[in-house]
């Protein structure tokens, strides 16, 4: 590969997930991020109580992301063949973990409100 432009990268992701699923996931990610920013600005602080629940959900997010990516790429855990594969897989897991943590934190903040005591 000679050049890797942002356009190419977007096209790669569209190819992996299919256009509607990819852009749907982007929309969800943007919505969750905006909601997260909204609650952070609204509350002016991070609640460690909610953050604990968010942390506890991380392993679930990690496993779910790995299972999802393997399924969508016709792959299996036995295909992991070298260090770079492990790194990519850990990256996928990390993204799933962080994504779910942010989601859990945001959902708690939105539905339980900022008044809750820790």
């Amino acid at each position, binding site marked *: *590969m*000679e*050049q*890797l*432009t*942002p*356009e*190419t990268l977007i*096209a*790669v*992701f*569209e*190819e*992996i997930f299919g256009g509607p699923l990819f852009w749907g996931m982007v929309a969800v990610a943007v919505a969750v991020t905006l909601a997260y*920013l909204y609650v*952070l*600005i609204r509350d*002016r*602080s*991070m*609640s*460690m109580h909610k953050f604990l629940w968010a942390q506890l959900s991380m392993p679930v997010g990690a496993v779910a992301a790995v299972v999802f990516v393997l399924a969508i*790429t*016709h*792959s*299996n855990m*036995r*295909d*992991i*063949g*070298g260090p*770079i*594969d492990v790194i*990519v*897989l850990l990256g996928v897991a990390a993204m799933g973990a962080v994504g779910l943590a942010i989601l859990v934190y945001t959902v708690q903040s939105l539905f339980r409100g900022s008044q809750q*005591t*820790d």
Partner: protein
Amino acid sequence: MTSDNSIHTSRRTFLGLALGGLATAASVRPAPAQRVQTKARIVIIGAGAAGTSVANRLVERLDGASITILDPSAEHLYQPGLSLVAVGLRPASYTQSNTADWLPKDVTLIPEAAAAIDAEAKTVGTSDGQTLSYDFLVVAPGLVLDHDAIEGFSLDMVGSNGIGALYAGPQYAAKTWEAASKFTEDGGVGVFTRPVTEMKCAGAPLKHTFLIEDIATRTAGAGKHEMHYAAHDGALFGVPIVSEKVRMLFGDRGITPHYRHVLKAVDGGRKIATFETPDGDTEMEYDYLHVIPPQRAPEVIRQSGLSWADKWTDQGWVEVDMKTLRHLRYPDIFALGDVAGVPKGKTAASVKWQVPVVEDHLVAAIEGREGRAAYDGYTSCPLITRVGRAMLVEFDYHNNLVPSFPGMIAPLEELWISWLMKEVALKATYNAMLRGKA
């Protein structure tokens, strides 16, 4: 008690971060090059990977040029996808799109084939009798599959009685899977071939062998299939270090190589394939036979006097300089893609590296200077070894490995990431290349 165990955030921090991100994104945009004013008439034969990509790049570089592209096929094929169609991982439609959709509006598409090329008079005659004059000609019609060269074989045999032929196009690739899937379920003897001529993606015959072995073992279990690979010469791949690696993998997977075996005839009724070998003809029984026919330059190229006179005389590839892809006798003609008479590079990945070279020399010629870009034979083959694994093999004219990601993606290691590149990233990069973007 929120203040002790809380992290404080502020609007200013967010705005700062957001501005920083925007600034970074803005700074990586490349500056557009100055367009060259010209009245040059450029004719491109073929709207495949090479022709389409060249057309898109020339439109970006030239202002006022008249660019005409000739292709009788309304359908553009993403040929690297055929390997996946032939093992049931993708539908035939995965490889199909409209030729016209990829072309810029400033380019004139004539849906006809080139019927005659007169390099002295600088004209191209079309199949409907039009004559186009050119100042520069880009020859990229691809190649033809010579199925008739194999006695007893015809394309209507594909898909039934254990015969596959994935090169023949999307429908035939899908039919190949019909025959191959039956073999993977029932077991038996699988025979995989390749032609003696130069060919598109010399890794594809190996990929098909590896994939069918993998799927067969998963479907019916080990020990029910006997796998044979017929190589045309004494190696399994043109690059020696890759050939050795494939030999070892074949050993591990129980695939028997047969060297210097060239498919000559098929008896579909008796299920027997006849091979030409240095010791005379030899027959092999099969339950599944994968046929890849000899490949040659299109007739119009071979009749036009553009081919090499002393090399590949039975195949007719265009006589070009291997570094600049410029015709050795007619400097206003370039050839790239499958039809180019160079020792390596009949793959889409090669086209990606050939296109900027042709663009550079063509634009330089219009400006009256010498181009500087050189093609060194770069060819890439994500050599799939299992569903889920591949080796990202990249090499050049000198049979050197030229990995794109040295130290990260080992070329001779079976990796999941290399599979991801073939299965998901390749088509996206290919499409970007067609649009002249990569």
